C-alpha cells in the first residue's frame, strides 16, 4: 500500500503511463520550478510588444536581446556550477577583462596573424582557467572562504590587466578573429551560438554526468560528500577552473563583440551573473542548481534592458523599476514553486 502511494508521486518511467508522465514531469520537474520565470519573461515580452509594437517584436530586436544576453549568459553558466556547489565567484567579471587584455596583446595578435586566430581564443581560455585554478587552490587547499578569495582575485586581476594593457584599450586587428566572432551562422550570430553551446554543455554536465552529481552533492552536504569518498578539494578546484574557463570564453566573446581588449571589460558582470543565477532558482546556499533557470534569468535581465531602451526610459527610473522587478520575479518564482508543492499535496494519494 505504501508503495503505491509513493509511486504515484514519483516521476513514473514506465511505458504504460508514458504520456501522463511527460505532463507530470513538466508540471513537477525542474521545468515547473522555472515556470514563474517563464511567466515573468512572457510578461516582459507582452509589455515590450504593447509599448513598442513591431519594433520590439522584430526578429532583429530579438537578436539584439540575445547577443546582449550571450556574454553574461556564458559567465552565468560557469557561476551556476560554483554556486550549486555552495561556493561563489566574484572574480569572473574581472577575469573577462584580464583575458581580453592578454589575448589582444600585440605579441599574441601578431603570432595569431602568422598562424591562426584560434591562438587568441586559446590564450584567452588558458588565462581564464589559470586564474580559476588559483582561485580554486586558495579556496580548497588554503581554506580561504570563496567570497574573500575571489574578491581578492577580482581586485588583483583588474590591477594586473591595467598593468599589462598600460591602461589603454587594445584594438583587435586580427580580422579573421573579429570576422568570425561577428559573423552569423544560419542567421544567428556566432556569439549566440556560443552561448547556446555553452548552455547546452552546461546543462548536460550538471544533469547527466558524474561531475554534475559531485557538484550538487558537495553543495548539498560537503561533509557527507567527503565521508562518502568524493575528492572534495580536487572537485572544488575544477569548479573554479570551470568558472574561469567560462569567464575566459566570455572575455574572448567580448573582444570579438567590441573588437578591443581592456581591463574594464566585464566590469560588475559578477553581480549580474549572480543575480541571474539566483533569480533563475539556483540556491545560493548550494545543493540545487538549474542551468535552464540561469538562462531564463539572463534573458529576463537583457529583455528588461531592451524594453527600457525601447521606451527611452530615464536611467534612474530604470534602476528603480529594475529593483522592483528583481524582487517580484523571485517572489513569482517562489509562489509557483510553493503552489506546485501544494498541488502535489492535494493530489489524491491513491491512484
Amino acid at each position, binding site marked *: 500500500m505504501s508503495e503505491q502511494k509513493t509511486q504515484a508521486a514519483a516521476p513514473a518511467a514506465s511505458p504504460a503511463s508514458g504520456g501522463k508522465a511527460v505532463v507530470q514531469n513538466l508540471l513537477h520537474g525542474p521545468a515547473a520550478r522555472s515556470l514563474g520565470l517563464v511567466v515573468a519573461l512572457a510578461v516582459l515580452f507582452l509589455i515590450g510588444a504593447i509599448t513598442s509594437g513591431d519594433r520590439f517584436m522584430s526578429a532583429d530586436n530579438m537578436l539584439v536581446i540575445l547577443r546582449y544576453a550571450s556574454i553574461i549568459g556564458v559567465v552565468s553558466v560557469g557561476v551556476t556550477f560554483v554556486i550549486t556547489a555552495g561556493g561563489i565567484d566574484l572574480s569572473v567579471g574581472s577575469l573577462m577583462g584580464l583575458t581580453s587584455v592578454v589575448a589582444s596583446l600585440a605579441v599574441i595578435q601578431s603570432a595569431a596573424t602568422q598562424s591562426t586566430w584560434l591562438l587568441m581564443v586559446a590564450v584567452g581560455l588558458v588565462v581564464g582557467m589559470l586564474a580559476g585554478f588559483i582561485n580554486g587552490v586558495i579556496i580548497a587547499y588554503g581554506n580561504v572562504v570563496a567570497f574573500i578569495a575571489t574578491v581578492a582575485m577580482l581586485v588583483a586581476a583588474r590591477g594586473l590587466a591595467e598593468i599589462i594593457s598600460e591602461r589603454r584599450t587594445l584594438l583587435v586587428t586580427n580580422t579573421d578573429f573579429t570576422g568570425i566572432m561577428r559573423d552569423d551562422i544560419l542567421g544567428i550570430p556566432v556569439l549566440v551560438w556560443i552561448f547556446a553551446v555553452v548552455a547546452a554543455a552546461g546543462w548536460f554536465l550538471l544533469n547527466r554526468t558524474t561531475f554534475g552529481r559531485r557538484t550538487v552533492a558537495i553543495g548539498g552536504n560537503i561533509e557527507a560528500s567527503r565521508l562518502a569518498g568524493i575528492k572534495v578539494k580536487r572537485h572544488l578546484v575544477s569548479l573554479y577552473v570551470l568558472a574561469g574557463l567560462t569567464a575566459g570564453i566570455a572575455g574572448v566573446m567580448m573582444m570579438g*563583440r567590441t573588437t578591443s581588449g581592456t581591463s574594464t571589460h566585464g566590469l560588475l558582470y559578477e553581480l549580474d551573473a549572480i543575480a541571474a543565477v539566483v533569480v533563475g532558482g539556483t540556491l545560493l546556499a548550494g545543493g540545487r542548481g538549474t542551468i535552464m533557470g540561469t538562462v531564463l534569468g539572463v534573458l529576463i535581465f537583457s529583455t528588461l534592458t531592451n524594453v527600457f531602451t525601447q521606451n527611452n526610459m530615464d536611467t534612474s527610473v530604470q534602476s528603480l523599476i529594475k529593483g522592483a522587478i528583481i524582487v517580484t520575479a523571485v517572489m513569482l518564482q517562489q509562489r509557483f514553486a510553493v503552489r506546485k508543492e501544494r498541488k502535489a499535496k492535494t493530489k489524491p494519494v491513491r491512484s
Partner: protein
Amino acid sequence: TGCSSETGGDSSQPTNASVDGNAAEGETVVIGFSGPAADHGWLGAINSAAIAAGENLGDVDLRVAEGTNDANLQISQVEQFINDDVDAIVLLPTDGAALTAVATKAMNAGIPVVNVDREFSSPAAARTTVLGDNYGMGQSAGNYICERLGDTPDAVVAEIAGVDSLPLTTERSEGFADALETCGLDVDNRVAADFTVAGGEAAASQLLAAAPEIDAIWNHDDDQGHGVLSAIDTAERDEFFMVGGAGSANAMELIKAGESVLEATVVYPSTQAADGVRLARLIAQDKAMSDLVEVEVPKRIVLNAPVVTSDNVDQYLPTAFAS
C-alpha cells in the same frame, strides 16, 4: 575664454618669467596628485599625462594617490598630503562639491590647490582651476548637429551619455539639449553607458534596436565610442552620422579616414591634469605663466571644447590621447 598652457613661443612683452625661466629647474617641489579611478580611457590618459608631466619636470616630485571614486577615500588622501606638507596639490575630484571642504582646509594650511576638471563648489577652495567645459562640450556637439541638420526639423537625434550619476554628464546633456533647441531639434532617444567600451557597445546596440531611423548621434566619450562603433557595425547601420566626445587618437584617425559614421568629435582635453601639475609647479615656485603679463598664474582657466572634423583633424591629432 579658452587658453591652453601648451601654447609656448617667444614673447616680446615685458614679463616676470620667460619661457626659459619657467623651464629652468627651480627648487624641487613636492606635488600631490589625486584623481578618480582610472577606470576608462580618458581618465587613464589624464593620469598618465599627469605622471608623465611630473617625470618630465626635473624639479617636481609627484606623489600619486590611488585613483578612487570614493569621496571619503579621496578626502583622506588630501588629508595625507596636508599632513605631509606638500608644496601643492593637484586635485581632480571624484565629485567637486564633496572635495571642497578638504581642499579649503588645504588652502587654509597654506598649500595651493589646483582644481582640475570637476569644479569645487567654493572659489576659495582652489588657487587655480583648470576646467574642461562640459556644458560647452555638449553645446559644441549640439551646434555641429544643428549645422548639419538644421533644415530638417523632424530629424531624429540620439544621445549616448556617459555615467549618468555624474554631474558632468548632466552638464554635457544640458549643453547639448540647449544647443539643439536653438535650431528646433531635440533628443529623441537617450541611453547612458559607463565610459567603457563594453558599456558603449551594450547601450548602443539597444539604442539602435529602439530607433530604426536615426539622423545623428552624439556619443559623450570616444573610449566607449569604440564599443558604440562596433555595435553600429554589427547592426549594419549607416544612415546617420555620429559626433564623438573627449577626442581620442583612435576617433581622430577614424575621422581622418572618413570611412565610418564618425564625422566629428568634441575635444575634452585629457591633458588637464598634466596642465594642473605644471601650473602647480609654477605656483609653488612663485612663477607666472610665461605668455601672460600677469605676475601670477590666473585663477581660472577654462579649456576650449573645439569640434574636430576631417578639416582640422591634423591639427589636433598630435595632442589626442591614446585610449
